[in-house]
C-alpha cells in the first residue's frame, strides 16, 4: 500500500488541529462581547423557547405589537459595547427561524444557564467554534471532490489560517451555521451528480431545507444546488428537470416547519414581521458589490482587512473566463458564489459584516483553483503571482510598521521588480527551463509565505489590537 494514500488524511488531521487551536484563541474576547447583540438575542430565543415555549429576543423592527425595553447586562455589555440603550425585547420573536437560537440557547441551557444574563459568549460561542472547524473540513472535502487534493490543501489552509475566517466564524450569527450546511449540501449534490443515487439528492435537499430553518437567506443553497443540477446533469437541462423538481420540493418543504412554528404562537404577527423584514431599508446601497470586494467588514462597524478576500474575487473573475481542462468543474464554486451574491443583493438590509461570511469559503476555493491552474499554464503565472501578492502585502503591512519595513524595503522592491521581469520574460519564452522551474517555485513560496503571514497577523490580534482593527 502506497504511503502517499495516507497523505490526504494526515493533512486533514493537521488542518483540523490547526483550525481547532487557532479558533480557540481569545474565543470569548474577540470580537468583544456585545459588539453584536444579535449573538445574545439568538441565544435568548433558544433559551426562552426551552424554558417558556415562547421565543423572546431583541428586535425593534416594526410589526411587533408590544416592545419591552430592558437593560440586560449579560457579559457586562453596558460597560462598553452596548452604550446606554436598553434592548428592545419582543415576543414571540419572528425575525428569523429559530434553529440557530436553539443551538446557542440550548448549549447555554446545558451549561447551566437559566436566565438571559447567563448566556455569556463563553458559552454561546462554543457551538460556533465547532461549526467553524467543521466548515474547514467540509471545504477540504468538497474541494478535493471537485478539483483534487492539491486544491483542497490550498483552500483549507487559507480557510484555517485566515484571521478574517477565524474571527468571523466564532460569532453567533446565522451565517456561521449556513456555511457548513451550504458546503454539506453542495457535497451531497456533487455526489448525486456523480453517482445518480436518489438518497443523495434527498440528502442535499434536506440539508438545504434545514438551512431555511436557520435563516431565509439559506435560499442561496437551494438556488445553488438547483443550478448545479441543471448545469451538470448528464443529458442536459431537460433530463435534469425531474431531479431539480424533487430537490426543490424536498428543500422548500422545510418552510412548512417555519410556518407551523409561526402559527403556533401568533400567525398575524408572524406575517407582519415577515412583511417588515421584506421591506427593510436597502442600506447596502449601490456600492454593495464594491464594498464586498474591498472592505472586509466583520461586525456592524468593525473591519479586519484580509487580502485573501480581494484575491478571491479576482480569482473568481478569472475562473469565469479561463478555459481549463476541467472548466466546467469551476462552476461548482462559481455557481454557489453567484447564487449567494444574488441573495445578498436581493435581501439587502444593513451593511453588516456577517452577511458576507458565506462568500469566504468559495473565494478561497477560487484562489486554490487559480494557483493550481497557474502551475500548469504559463499564461497564468503573472496573474497568480499578482493575486498572491495582495494577501502577502496586506498581512505584512499589519505585522510590521512602515518604519520597520524600511529595513526590508530594498529586498521587497528589487525582489518584486526582478520577479515581475522574470514573469514578463516567461511570456516571451514560456518553454525555457528557468521559467518552468523558477516560476512555480516562486508561486509556491509566495503562497507558503502568505499562510505564514496569516499566522503572524493572527498572533497580533489581541483584545487591545482589536480596539483599533481596520
Amino acid at each position: 500500500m502506497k504511503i502517499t494514500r495516507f497523505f490526504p488524511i494526515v493533512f486533514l488531521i493537521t488542518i483540523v488541529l490547526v483550525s481547532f487551536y487557532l479558533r480557540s484563541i481569545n474565543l470569548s474576547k474577540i470580537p468583544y462581547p456585545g459588539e453584536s447583540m444579535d449573538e445574545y438575542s439568538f441565544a435568548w430565543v433558544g433559551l426562552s423557547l426551552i424554558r417558556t415555549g415562547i421565543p423572546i429576543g431583541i428586535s425593534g423592527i416594526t410589526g411587533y405589537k408590544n416592545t419591552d425595553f430592558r437593560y440586560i447586562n449579560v457579559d457586562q455589555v453596558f460597560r462598553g459595547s452596548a452604550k446606554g440603550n436598553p434592548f428592545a425585547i419582543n415576543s414571540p420573536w419572528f425575525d428569523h427561524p429559530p434553529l440557530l437560537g436553539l443551538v446557542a440557547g440550548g448549549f447555554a441551557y446545558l451549561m447551566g444557564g437559566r436566565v438571559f444574563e447567563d448566556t455569556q459568549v463563553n458559552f454561546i460561542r462554543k457551538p460556533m467554534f465547532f461549526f467553524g472547524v467543521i466548515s474547514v473540513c467540509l471545504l477540504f472535502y468538497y474541494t478535493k471532490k471537485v478539483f483534487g487534493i492539491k486544491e483542497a490543501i490550498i483552500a483549507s489552509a487559507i480557510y484555517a489560517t485566515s484571521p478574517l475566517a477565524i474571527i468571523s466564524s466564532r460569532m453567533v450569527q446565522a451565517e456561521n451555521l449556513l456555511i457548513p450546511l451550504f458546503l454539506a449540501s453542495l457535497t451531497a449534490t456533487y455526489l448525486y451528480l456523480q453517482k445518480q443515487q436518489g438518497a443523495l439528492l434527498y440528502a442535499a435537499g434536506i440539508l438545504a431545507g434545514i438551512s431555511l430553518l436557520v435563516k431565509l437567506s439559506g435560499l442561496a443553497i437551494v438556488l445553488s444546488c438547483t443550478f448545479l443540477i441543471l448545469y451538470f446533469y448528464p443529458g442536459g437541462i431537460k433530463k435534469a428537470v425531474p431531479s431539480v423538481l424533487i430537490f426543490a420540493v424536498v428543500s422548500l418543504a422545510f418552510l412548512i416547519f417555519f410556518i407551523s412554528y409561526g402559527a403556533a404562537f401568533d400567525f398575524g404577527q408572524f406575517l407582519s414581521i415577515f412583511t417588515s423584514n421584506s421591506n427593510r431599508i436597502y442600506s447596502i446601497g449601490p456600492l454593495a458589490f464594491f464594498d464586498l470586494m474591498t472592505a472586509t467588514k466583520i461586525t456592524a462597524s468593525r473591519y479586519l482587512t484580509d487580502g485573501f478576500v480581494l484575491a478571491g474575487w479576482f480569482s473568481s473573475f478569472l475562473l469565469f473566463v479561463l478555459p481549463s481542462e476541467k472548466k466546467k468543474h469551476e462552476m461548482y464554486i462559481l455557481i454557489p458564489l453567484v447564487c449567494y451574491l444574488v441573495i445578498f443583493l436581493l435581501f439587502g438590509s444593513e451593511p453588516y459584516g456577517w452577511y458576507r461570511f458565506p462568500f469566504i469559503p468559495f473565494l478561497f476555493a477560487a484562489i486554490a483553483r487559480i494557483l493550481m491552474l497557474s502551475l500548469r499554464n504559463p499564461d497564468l503565472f503573472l496573474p497568480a503571482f499578482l493575486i498572491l501578492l495582495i494577501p502577502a502585502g496586506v498581512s505584512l503591512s499589519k505585522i510590521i510598521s512602515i518604519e520597520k519595513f524600511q529595513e526590508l524595503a530594498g529586498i521587497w522592491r528589487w525582489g518584486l521588480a526582478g520577479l515581475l521581469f522574470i514573469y514578463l520574460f516567461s511570456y516571451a519564452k514560456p518553454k525555457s527551463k528557468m521559467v518552468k522551474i523558477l516560476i512555480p517555485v516562486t508561486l509556491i513560496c509566495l503562497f507558503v509565505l502568505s499562510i505564514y503571514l496569516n499566522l503572524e497577523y493572527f498572533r497580533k490580534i489581541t483584545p487591545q489590537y482589536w480596539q483599533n482593527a481596520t
Partner: protein
Amino acid sequence: MNLKPLAVYLIAIFTLSIFLYLFLKNYSSTNYSKAKKEELLSAPSKFKLNTGDPCMHSVYGDPAGVQENYIKINLHCSKSNSSTNTLALEGISPDTYSGALYLLANVNVFEAGVIPERIDKLGNLISDNNQWRCFIGQNREIKNFNEKLKQKDTINCFYEFSFEDVKKYYENN
C-alpha cells in the same frame, strides 16, 4: 420518475409540521407564565459576582434615538472614586428614583437597598445615618425616592460628602 418516495417524504413533513404545531401550542401553554418571562429578563446571572463597590462599573455612552428621554446617575463613593451612568427612561421600571437606582444596581452588579425616604445601602457602602445623599442640581436634595423621574435629570449621589463638598462639586462641574 418514481414519485412514491417524494410522496412519502411530503406526508412525513406534513405530519411532522402538525406535530410541531401541536407540540409548541401545548408546551407554551404548560410552561409560559409572565413571572417566568420576567425572571428570564430581569433575574441576575448566577455566574455574575456582585461587587461591594458601587462605583466599580459604569454605563458609558449616550443612548441613541431617545432624544431627551434619558437620565444620568453619577455615584460619588469618595472624592476619587465615582461612576458615571446614562440610562434611557424607557428601560427604567418603575420610573422613579428608586427604580433607577435598583436598575443601576442590577446592571452594575451591586446590592442596593432604597426605601422611600432614603438610601439604605449601595454595595458595601451602608447609609444608616444618611451617608448617601442624592441631589438634582445643587439645591434640590431628593427626599422621596418614589418620585417620578423627569427627562434629562442628572442625579448625583454622594457618600459621606459634607455640604461644602457637594457645593464645591457643583461649582467645579
